């Protein structure tokens, strides 16, 4: 461990976000560094590389104003920690966890390393409890489960923030009033966007259950590397020490990845795809894998990271690598949006991988799996036919095909589309599904069990003649 009383003035180089200090003694990897700028400002950094009397430091506030003569550097001997306690709820903090509101300094029950430690896979418990978001496009087709990491892939100008706010407003486990908390980590979003979330939390009284970590667009970019980690550290405390069910919203992960790219470029690392570092996958997974459920503990962490896809390109490294780590993805589609549908969630590429264990009898309703499969089938048939109609015209279609075409339209208008303040239950969502399927004869419903169909008939849900 380094001697914390030594103050180094041996900065040899300042480049981009990096600072290089010479003649260091036994500085440890990843420890926190305090940097006194010539103008007296106190900055924070961490050690990226150490050895042979030299340390490379990333400075979270950026290095503008730093020089090689006067800048003073002190190593703290500790990795970065966050003071944790339940009193963090209701607080507004900056992207590194320092209070932004007028409140007192954070009280600390403990100080936790913001990098955390990997959950032992043997200690995990498989997520199985569905969360009702009140949105049919999620609940019916791609159910969110407690302990899941389910990102929202969106694009500029699409209403992902409204969707996220609606989810936060409505999310619940039916029949279970539970202890619920929100941790909101903002990275590089605008002040207006942040205000929108705060207002929306406030309206519903959610603010007092919420901890906000805000790194806004005009805040230091490199700090974004800390923000999700600080947010998740708070979430871990709330979930695992205070038994709360925590929903973590991280937005916008694209800005996070860009900060990472900046550091990597400054270190002249060999870039991976599109200039992002080759370890982007590992780095993102250290964030996303902090979602979960642990045996014997009451609290859970559910993550909904939001990211905007550059040029709506899902093969861009950020959505791509995110998709490789998370347990599915919810896609906000531009063409659905253009058709005037809210929420414009595109079912095709959306997927909740943990849904299968979280739905059905005792959780949502026994017919959920079959209804979901049948709706999916119908919608994808209908969408194919739309393409065909564009070429050959609707007259060329068979009677069966006409039905599917009509179904796709109704499905978008009645099932996906809903009000921003409309909170549908699982039952309501599934009932709408049956109503739409009533346009098909029984024989067409190959994804449903005949017994389920008769049940739906008896309940007067399936009304095909």
């Amino acid at each position, binding site marked *: 461990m380094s001697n914390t009383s030594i103050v180094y003035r041996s900065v040899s180089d300042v480049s981009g976000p990096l600072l290089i200090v010479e003649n260091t003694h*036994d500085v*440890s990897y990843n420890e926190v560094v305090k940097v006194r700028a010539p103008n007296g400002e106190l900055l924070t950094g961490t050690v*990226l590389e150490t*050895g042979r009397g030299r340390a490379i430091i990333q400075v979270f506030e950026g290095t503008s104003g730093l020089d090689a003569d006067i800048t003073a550097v002190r190593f703290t001997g500790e990795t970065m920690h966050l003071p944790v306690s339940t009193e963090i709820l209701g607080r507004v903090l900056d992207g590194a966890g320092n209070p932004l509101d007028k409140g007192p300094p954070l009280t600390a029950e403990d100080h936790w390393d913001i990098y955390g*430690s990997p959950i032992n896979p043997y200690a995990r418990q*498989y997520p199985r409890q569905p969360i009702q978001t009140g949105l049919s496009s999620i609940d019916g087709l791609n159910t969110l489960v407690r302990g899941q990491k389910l990102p929202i892939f969106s694009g500029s100008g699409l209403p992902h923030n409204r969707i996220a706010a609606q989810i936060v407003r409505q999310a619940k486990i039916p029949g279970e009033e539970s202890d619920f908390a929100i941790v909101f980590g903002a990275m590089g979003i605008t002040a207006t966007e942040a205000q929108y979330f705060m207002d929306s939390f406030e309206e519903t009284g959610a603010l007092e259950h919420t901890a906000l970590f805000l790194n806004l667009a005009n805040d230091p970019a490199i700090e974004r590397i800390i923000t999700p980690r600080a947010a998740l550290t708070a979430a871990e405390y709330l979930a695992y020490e205070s038994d709360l069910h925590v929903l973590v919203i991280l937005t916008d992960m694209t800005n996070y990845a860009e900060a990472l790219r900046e550091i990597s470029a400054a270190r002249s690392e060999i870039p*991976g795809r599109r200039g992002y570092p080759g370890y982007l996958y590992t780095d993102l997974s250290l964030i996303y894998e902090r979602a979960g459920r642990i045996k014997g503990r009451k609290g859970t962490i559910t993550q909904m990271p939001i990211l905007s896809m550059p040029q709506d390109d899902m093969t861009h490294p950020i959505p791509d690598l995110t998709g490789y780590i998370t347990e599915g*993805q919810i896609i906000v589609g531009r063409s659905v949006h253009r058709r005037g549908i809210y929420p414009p969630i595109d079912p095709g590429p959306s997927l909740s991988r943990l849904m299968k264990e979280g739905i059905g009898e005792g959780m949502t309703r026994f017919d959920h799996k079959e209804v979901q499969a049948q709706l999916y089938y119908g919608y994808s048939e209908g969408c194919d036919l739309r393409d065909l109609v564009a070429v050959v015209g609707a007259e060329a279609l068979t009677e069966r095909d006409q039905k599917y075409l009509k179904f796709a339209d109704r499905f978008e208008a009645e099932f996906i589309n809903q009000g921003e303040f409309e909170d549908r239950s699982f039952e309501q969502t599934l009932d709408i599904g049956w109503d739409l399927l009533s346009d098909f004869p029984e024989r067409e419903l190959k994804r449903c069990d005949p017994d389920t169909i008769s049940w739906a008939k008896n309940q007067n849900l399936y009304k095909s003649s």
Partner: protein
Amino acid sequence: MTESTGRIETIAGPVVKCSGLPSVRMYEVVRVGTQKLIGEVIEVSDKEFTAQVYEETSGLAPGEPVISTGDSLSVELGPGLLGAIYDGIQRPLPELREMSGDFISRGLNVDALNKEKKWEFKPSVEVGAKVSPGDIIGKVPETGILTTMIMIPVGVQGEVVEIASEDEYTVIETICKVKDSHGDIHDVIMMQRTPVRVGRGFKDRAPMDTPLLTGQRVIDTFMPQAKGGTGAIPGGFGTGKTVTLHQFAKWADAQVVVYVGCGERGNEMTEALEEWPSLKDPKSGRPLMERTVLIANTSNMPVAAREASIYVAVTIAEYFRDQGFDVALMADSTSRWAEALREISGRLGQLPSEEGYPAYLGSRLAQFYERGGRVKTLASDERLGSITICGAVSPPGGDFSEPVTQATLRIVKVFWALDKDLAARRFFPAINTLTSYSLYHSTLKKWHIENLGEDWPELVKESLALLQKDQELREIVQLVGPDALPESERAILEAARMIKEDFLTQSALHEIDTYSPIGKTYRMLRVIIGFTQRMAAAVKMGVQVKRILDLSVLDNIARMKITPLDTYEEQMDAVEKKMEREFKSLLQELSDSGLLSEPVV
């Protein structure tokens, strides 16, 4: 500083440069820093060496000690492996949890095999027997599924002078003494230790003429794997790699399954741990976990251990192969392993090749897959064992032209190509039948004919031809609409639709459909092709496709997938009879009303 202690010079992530251990060897295990983190030497130069550290290096500082162990990274092999779950360097996760709680902390040192547990050992040789490496000297009924064979380790040869009687022993108690030709006595224990980076030896390779049946129709039919074969399943995220590999782990007719989750999700390992103990092996009726060894280096666990996990897994597989078992090794995902290689190589400052991967990516991949195969094992008698390797590949952007996919395709013999479009339509398994292939068709042909039927190769060929034709026709339809097609071609579209809907799609989540024994697969295909042939013939005689689609036997065909395993034979017989009947009466009816261009004969 003692002779076996060096010091840390620099630290950058998992890569630590050290000095002061002149005798350190490549791939030697070292203990790094005051916390004694586990590391492995990956570069040795004049005065310095570099270690990759298998644990998080935060807080490590230059000047801290490095201790050499004289040992290379090895695994412990013996009773106790089955049903276990290890991390990437074979530390048992349940024990780690006991030591450090729900989160994995650092510097933990645990034995892979329990040294106190006693196992029932039954000797199978007598004093005076001549033994060489690989010879079986006794058996341990390790789990309800598998009896582990206790073998003479490499380096021991001679005459048995003592053998333990049938009783319970720990894995480190001497159970046999062997006198070699110099008169030296070697103590043999049940446990063996094997370095992971060089494969365990064998006598010879053996032909791969038996399929590894996976219970997945599309695979067993169109791109079958062979016992001892190598296969890769590339696909973008969410296309079904993990589900398919889990399906293999559950249903493949291997005797032992080694599953390595390499840089993937924690929940997927948990799923296996929670689900597999309650699933029954279709043959023995015993819990599937009893034949399974799990290795988990999830994506948030240290990168260097990810690189090692693959070798740990394949060495464990070799140990069971050497006992004469058919082992299936699943690696999810080899891309994450390759990325670990890239990350370490980058930090070493090695010259990058394509997309930053080191130039040796291809050769390392080849060396790994080379460790698969069907072999004559080391032993005085003739014994065959196999390792089938199936690796997931996760190409960035789902683009198969990237280096890891390409390097893998040059090596493996089976290619299961996952298709994003199919996955988006929830067409599962989303394997593209037209671009995927198996190079084992011809070597497996004899088995298929003998065990299924003479007509198998024909059925497979015909279905593929229909799917191919379907693809071409659908392109035309996209241009001109379905109305422009003649009836005979519509019949082909319908035939292909049946193959896809009623045969190729198979839900991993359906209680019955999740596993399709090859006998059932064969019967289903025979029914469907039988139907399509009759349909083609009828259309030729002037019957409209529409009329054929009204036949009620189609409903029976659609439900074939979910016919229970114990009754499918009778049910398929019934379907075939019904099909024949319905076609006959349809033709008769149309012929009677003079609607056929050719009379019914």
